[in-house]
């Protein structure tokens, strides 16, 4: 036991605890992984860097810069487009909220198409972030009898009303709770985001979301080169790889720069309202305080920041 020649790891180890040790282990891992991979595919430095890529929140500003440069280069090779990736921080003192006027929406799906283009969504297969449900006016909001695949010459169809559903940016998001690797989280401005380079594609979050808001890249997304939106955000609309989950981010690349989400802009009847819940003068606060508001699946306590209301 008390062998003086004993040089057990415990004896040899520097007496440091906490992060430095953790970093040491992580560093060793990366080095090993790098060595293992480099021997196999020395040529493919990009793939290697991507493999050992860290969680978004663990990146130092310098690493973030390098990562973004690498991604932009890769996108250039893949799409032939000069995609610019930003990592815009949240604006302090802002908590976003959204309201949709059920009495105005006509079910034209312009928001759906606008969203697809704005957010570089795959055209084939297509799993749009916004689902517009058609229901009978007689039946009220009754998801069991809702039709997401309606196809009419003209909308609104007689006797029907429409309810667009996308991510509700829950204050108490079950999708975040279940993710085994923390690849998805709620930002300080209330937007629920996903790190597409950390998601392992287990689809727990798809199962946990009560609003069908999350979509999986079942195959490699296809976006026509000339239709790429080159203004992108790291946690938002940059093109996604296969095998990860994506969803509405309230156009994080626009709203953090003070613009409205695309769907708000394209809605022909002005059914969509967006603003800062913390600002008592905002339109969204006016609606919440003065209109009849409906919260989808309120009983689940997800506390959506997306509100339906009857404006007329």
């Amino acid at each position, binding site marked *: 036991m008390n062998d003086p020649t004993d040089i057990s790891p415990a004896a040899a180890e520097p007496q440091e605890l906490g992060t430095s040790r*953790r970093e040491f*282990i*992580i560093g060793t*891992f990366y080095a090993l*992984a790098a060595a293992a991979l480099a021997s196999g595919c020395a040529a493919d430095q990009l793939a290697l860097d991507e*493999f050992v890529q860290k*969680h978004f929140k663990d990146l130092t500003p310098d690493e973030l810069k390098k990562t973004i440069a690498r991604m932009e280069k890769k996108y250039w090779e893949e799409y032939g487009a000069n995609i610019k990736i930003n990592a815009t921080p949240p604006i302090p003192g802002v908590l976003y909220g959204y309201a949709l006027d059920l009495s105005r929406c006509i079910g034209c799906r312009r928001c759906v198409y606008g969203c697809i283009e704005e957010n570089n969504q795959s055209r084939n*297969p297509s*799993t749009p972030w916004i*689902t517009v*449900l058609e229901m009978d006016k007689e039946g009220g909001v*009754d*998801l*069991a*009898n*809702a039709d*997401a*695949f309606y196809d009419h010459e003209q909308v609104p169809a007689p006797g029907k009303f429409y309810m667009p*559903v996308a991510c509700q940016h829950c204050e108490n998001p*079950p999708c975040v*709770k*279940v*993710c*085994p*690797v*923390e*690849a998805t989280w709620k930002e300080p401005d209330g937007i629920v985001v996903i790190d597409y380079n*950390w*998601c*392992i*594609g*287990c*689809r*727990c979050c*798809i*199962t*946990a*979301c*009560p*609003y*069908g808001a*999350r*979509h*999986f*890249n*079942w*195959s*490699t997304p296809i976006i026509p080169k000339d239709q790429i939106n080159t203004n992108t955000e790291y946690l938002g609309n940059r093109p996604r*790889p*296969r*095998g*990860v*989950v994506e969803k509405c981010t309230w156009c994080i690349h626009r709203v953090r720069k003070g613009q409205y989400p695309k769907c708000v802009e394209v809605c022909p009847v002005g059914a969509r309202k967006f603003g800062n819940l913390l600002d008592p003068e905002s339109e969204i606060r006016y609606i919440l305080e003065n209109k009849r508001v409906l919260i989808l699946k309120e009983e*689940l306590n997800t506390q959506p920041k997306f509100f339906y209301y009857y404006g007329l």
Partner: protein
Amino acid sequence: MNPLVKVKNFVFGTGRMAFLGGSPVYYGWLLFLLILICQGLLAYSHQFQLGLISTGLRDSVSWGFYIGNFTFLVGVAAAAVLLVIPAYLYNWKPIREVVIFGEMLAVAAIVMCLLFVCVDMGRPDRFWHLFPIIGHMHLPSSIMAWDACVLNVYLIINLFVASYLIYCAYNGKKYNPKIVVPLVILSIPMAVSIHTVTAFLYNGMASRPYWNSAILAPRFIASAFCSGPALLLILFQILRKVSDFDIKDEAIQKVAEYMAYAMVLNLFLYGAEVFKEYYSNTHHLVHYKYLFSGLHGQTSPIAVYAWMSLAFAVIALVIFLIPKLRMTPMTMNIGCVLIYFSVYIEKGIALIIPGYTPDTLGQVYRYVPSMTEVRVAMGVFGIGFLIFTLMVKVSVAILFSPDRKVAHA
């Protein structure tokens, strides 16, 4: 002898035992498993190239056959070890052997579980994100992260105990009970926990009313107590024929009796669930309607399986409740096969799919597994059975063969 040399001898010796001196039936079985594995690998490489689009899964039904099989096998793994309890209580004679075979079955089942999770992942290349320290384990909030923990710990414990016991037997030593007994005792609550945590994975999803029921975890345990022992009973009988493994009839009868209790409990809990849904007749009933008949005038592709599973469970229960039938090997084995498949269908198909159908926005996607999924699943079973077969072959050679000394001479 140098311990390293000992280990080396053990590895080579057991390797020889695994592949040499088998009967033609044994080699035929190995060949069959290899074919299964190869076709599974081919199917998986297809899936790897195309993505999960090659499965029948879509956003509406985002877990299916793979995760169903995973859930079933967690049950098998749990029940295999829980059999240790009666073995100790009644002091069945080949208790060491019962422990070893139970733990080996658990090891093979957990390996299959982990493989099913891997083939279901969109980004298997990022598996390390789930590791402690280098990754981000989302504890304590993610049940999936907990499940990964308990499954891996369970795998390590069982693998260690089983190989340690075999290693000692190989060297003709007595095992050290100070090492084995605490680990075996620890593996019992672990067995309960792997299945409970797996049940919580579904149970905790408030978005899916079909699973959001407090008796889901008890139902998991009850059904596992039906399917796991069924598999072991058949295995014990085979081993009794082909080796010196002399488990007594009374022991087998005792297990069968426990299975009868488990079956009663399983059907009772199931009935309680069905009563609650049909009597309260809320909107949540749609999932049961999809399970047993269909929605919007269309028969669901899983209804026939749901009824099959129920029928198998009832017939097996009748067999196991009547002592005369339970004690006749022929009928008992039929009952074992029936209950095994009943639980397999129940976990593999009837648990996952109706949870997603209709989806959270009321849309119905009629999921059926694709050919790729079925083939990959067969491949995973091939790997699991291969591991189990080789382990059993080795342990039979070591534990029962009188001339085993030759192997490491």
